[in-house]
C-alpha cells in the first residue's frame, strides 16, 4: 500500500495542477493578513483592477505597529499609524473581516488565528509573515509568504509552489522539569543549524511531541522557520480537537463530527518515508539560552559561551567572533554569569496563556532584580490578556515588578516603541536574536518564558530546572 506523510496528504489534497517541472498551483484555505506586508499587495490589486478571490478566507489584524501602552490614545508615530489605518481602509474596501486595534480579539496574528479557530486541521494557511509555520501545530500546511505572493493569493486563492523535501524531527521520552517546547525548538536548531531545514517541511513527532499541549505545539512549529523550514507541522489528535471545539470559526454540530472524522486521517502513515530523520532524546534537553546573533548559536544554561578557537571552519569562526563582539561576551564565560538589563515575555512564540501562567508561576511572590531596568509581559492577544487577568496573573507580575502591557508583536521586532537601546541585554521569549532585531545595538538572548522570568528575578540567567 502507498504510505504517505502528513505533508504528502496536505499537499495532495490542495493540488490544483502541476507543471512538467514540478511547479504546482496549491489552493489556499486561510489567508491571514497584517498591516506590514499587505499594503503593497492591496495596492497591486487596485492597480490591476482585481478583487480578492475569496474575502471570507481572509482574516486581518494589526499587530506589528500597535502600542502596548496607552492604546486608547491611538498610535503616536504617524508612519506606523498610517500603516494601520491603511489596513483598516483596505479591509473595509474589500470586505475582509478585521479585528481592529481596540477589539478584544486583536493580537499577534499567529496567536489570534488559532484562538479564533480560524486555523483548522487539513487547511493550507498562509500569511505574509515567516512565523506562519505556527499554524502547522494543528495538522495544517502553513507557511510564510512574501508580499507578491500575498497579492497572488488574494487574486487567485492559489500559491505557485514546489513541493519541499520532508524531515521528521522525532523527540522521545519525558522532558525534564522546567524544560519546554521552546527548549526543544532551540535544541533542534542547535543540532541542525538555521539552514538545516532549508528546502524541507518539518513534521515534529514522537511521544514527547504527542504529549505537548496545543500552546506548546504552536511554540515548536513557530520556530521551524528558525531552523530554515518554511513549514512545521504536527499530526492532529484529540489534543487538537479539544482545543478547537467551540471556537468561533471552528465547525459546529454535525459538521464538527464530519470534520473530526476527516481530521483523524491527518497523520503520517505507519512506515511513511521521510527524506531526513532527526532524533532527539527529551531527557537530554536542558533549558536553552542563545549566546549569539543567530538562533543556532545556542547552548544549555549550565554551559559556557563557546570559544571561536573551537569553531568547525573559518567562516564559522569569523561569525562567532563577530557575534561575541556584538553581544559583548567573552569566550568560555559561564552562561549563568551573564547579567541582563531587560526582559521581554511575549510574541507569537511565547505569548499564549500557558506562557503567561508559566512565567507567573516563577515570578510569584518574588521581585525583579535591581539591575533589571525593565521586565515586560506582553500577552499575545486581548483574549489572552483577559484570561490572564481573570486568573490573577497580572497581579502576580505587577507585584513582582513586571510591566503588564497590551497585546502586540512589541519588542520581538521592535517596530513600535518597545525596543532595546544600544548595548542593552535582554532575556527574551521571542524567536530571533539577530543583530538589531530588538533595537539597534540591542543584545538578545532567546529563552523560554520560565527562563525569562527566572532571569528577571535573579538579574542573570539561572537554571530554572533547579529552582
Amino acid at each position, binding site marked *: 500500500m502507498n504510505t504517505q506523510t502528513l505533508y504528502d496528504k496536505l499537499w495532495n489534497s490542495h493540488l*490544483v*495542477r502541476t*507543471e*512538467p*517541472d514540478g*511547479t504546482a*498551483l496549491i*489552493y489556499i484555505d486561510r489567508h491571514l493578513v497584517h498591516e506590514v*506586508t499587505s*499594503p*503593497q499587495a492591496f*495596492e497591486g490589486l487596485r492597480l*490591476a483592477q*482585481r478583487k480578492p478571490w475569496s474575502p471570507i478566507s481572509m482574516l486581518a489584524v494589526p499587530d*506589528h*505597529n500597535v502600542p502596548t501602552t496607552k492604546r486608547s490614545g491611538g498610535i503616536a*508615530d504617524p*508612519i506606523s499609524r*498610517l*500603516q494601520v489605518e*491603511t489596513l483598516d481602509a483596505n479591509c473595509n474596501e474589500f470586505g475582509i473581516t478585521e479585528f481592529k486595534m481596540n477589539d478584544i480579539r486583536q493580537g499577534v496574528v499567529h496567536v489570534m488565528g488559532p484562538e479564533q479557530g480560524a486555523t*483548522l486541521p*487539513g*487547511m493550507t494557511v498562509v500569511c505574509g509573515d*515567516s512565523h*506562519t509555520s505556527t499554524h502547522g501545530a494543528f495538522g495544517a500546511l502553513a*507557511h*510564510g*509568504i*512574501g*508580499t*507578491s*505572493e500575498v497579492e*497572488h493569493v488574494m*487574486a487567485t*486563492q*492559489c500559491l*505557485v509552489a514546489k513541493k*519541499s523535501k520532508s524531515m521528521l524531527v522525532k523527540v522521545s521520552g519525558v522532558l525534564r522539569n522546567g524544560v519546554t517546547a521552546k527548549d526543544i525548538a532551540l535544541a533542534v536548531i542547535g543540532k541542525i543549524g*538555521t*539552514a538545516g531545514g*532549508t528546502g524541507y517541511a518539518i513534521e515534529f513527532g514522537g511521544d514527547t511531541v504527542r504529549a505537548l499541549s496545543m500552546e506548546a505545539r504552536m511554540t515548536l512549529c513557530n520556530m521551524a522557520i528558525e531552523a*530554515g*523550514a518554511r513549514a512545521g507541522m504536527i499530526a492532529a489528535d484529540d489534543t487538537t480537537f479539544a482545543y478547537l471545539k467551540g471556537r468561533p470559526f471552528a*465547525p459546529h454540530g454535525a*459538521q464538527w463530527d464530519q*470534520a473530526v472524522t*476527516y481530521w483523524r486521517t491527518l497523520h503520517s502513515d505507519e512506515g511513511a518515508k521521510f527524506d531526513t530523520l532527526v532524533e532527539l532524546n527529551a531527557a537530554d534537553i536542558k533549558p536553552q539560552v542563545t549566546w549569539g546573533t*543567530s538562533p*543556532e548559536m545556542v547552548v544549555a544554561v549550565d554551559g559556557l559561551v563557546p570559544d571561536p578557537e573551537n569553531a568547525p571552519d573559518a*567562516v564559522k569562526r*569569523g*561569525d562567532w567572533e563577530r557575534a561575541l563582539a556584538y553581544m559583548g561576551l567573552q569566550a568560555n564565560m559561564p552562561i549563568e554569569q551573564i547579567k541582563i538589563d531587560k526582559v521581554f515575555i511575549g510574541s507569537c512564540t511565547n505569548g499564549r496563556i500557558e506562557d503567561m501562567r508559566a512565567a507567573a508561576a516563577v515570578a510569584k511572590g518574588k521581585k525583579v532584580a535591581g539591575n533589571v531596568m525593565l521586565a515586560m509581559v506582553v500577552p499575545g492577544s486581548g483574549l489572552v490578556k483577559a484570561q490572564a487577568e481573570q486568573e490573577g496573573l497580572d497581579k502576580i507580575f505587577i507585584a513582582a515588578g513586571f510591566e503588564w502591557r497590551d497585546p502586540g508583536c512589541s519588542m520581538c*521586532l*521592535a*517596530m513600535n516603541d518597545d525596543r532595546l537601546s544600544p548595548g542593552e541585554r535582554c532575556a527574551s521569549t521571542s524567536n*530571533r536574536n*539577530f543583530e*538589531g532585531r530588538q533595537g*539597534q545595538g540591542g543584545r538578545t538572548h532567546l529563552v523560554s518564558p520560565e527562563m525569562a522570568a527566572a532571569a528577571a528575578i535573579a538579574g542573570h540567567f539561572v537554571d530554572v530546572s533547579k529552582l
Partner: protein
Amino acid sequence: MNKFTLLDGLVAPMDRANVDTDAIIPKQFLKSIKRSGFGPNAFDEWRYLDHGEPGMDNSKRQLNPDFVLNQARYQGAQVLLARENFGCGSSREHAPWALEDYGFRVIIAPSFADIFFNNCFKNGLLPIRLAEDKVDALFKAAAKAVGYRLTIDLEKQLITTPDGQRYAFEVDAHRKYCLINGLDDIGLTLKHKDDIKSFEAKHRAAQPWL
C-alpha cells in the same frame, strides 16, 4: 517586473554566513506602504554610523568606512557574493526590494533561505545557488582583482569569469521563464481560472466546514 536575460556586472563580496533580512532592511523601514525607495536603507545598520529612521536625508548621513559595500572599489556593484543561508529570517519582501533598488540584480551564495529565494524571483533579482568551493573561489578572485566582474547568462544558465572559467547553475523552468520575460505570476495563474474553480467546488463539497 524587470526582465533578466544577460548581465555583465561588478562583484561585491559579503563574507559572512546567515545574513538575515533584518540586516538587509531593518524594521523601521517596513512601515512604508510603498514598494520602492528602500535602496538607500539597504543594510542600514551596517552601512551608516548613525541610527536610521524613515524620512531622513540619507545623503547627509555618515557612512561606516568599515562596511564592505562602502568601499570605493565596489561602487556600482550588481552582483552580490554571499555565504550560506543568505536572506534568512523574516519573510519581508522589502529585503529583495531594497537589494534591487540598491542596484543588485544577481546574488550568488551556497544556499539561501527559502522565502527570500522565492521573493527574489518576483522582483527581477536572480539568486544563484553555487557549490561552496566555487563560491569560495569567487570570493578569492573578487578579493584579488579590483573591478572583478562576472557575466551571468540566464538563458544558458552560465556564470563566466574574466579568465573564461564557466560555472553552470540550476534554475526552475517556470521561474526562468517568468524572469526572462518579466512576467508576474498572477496573470499566468488566472489562465487556469477554470481549474481553480472546479478544484474549489470539489474541495468545499468534501469539507463543507471550510
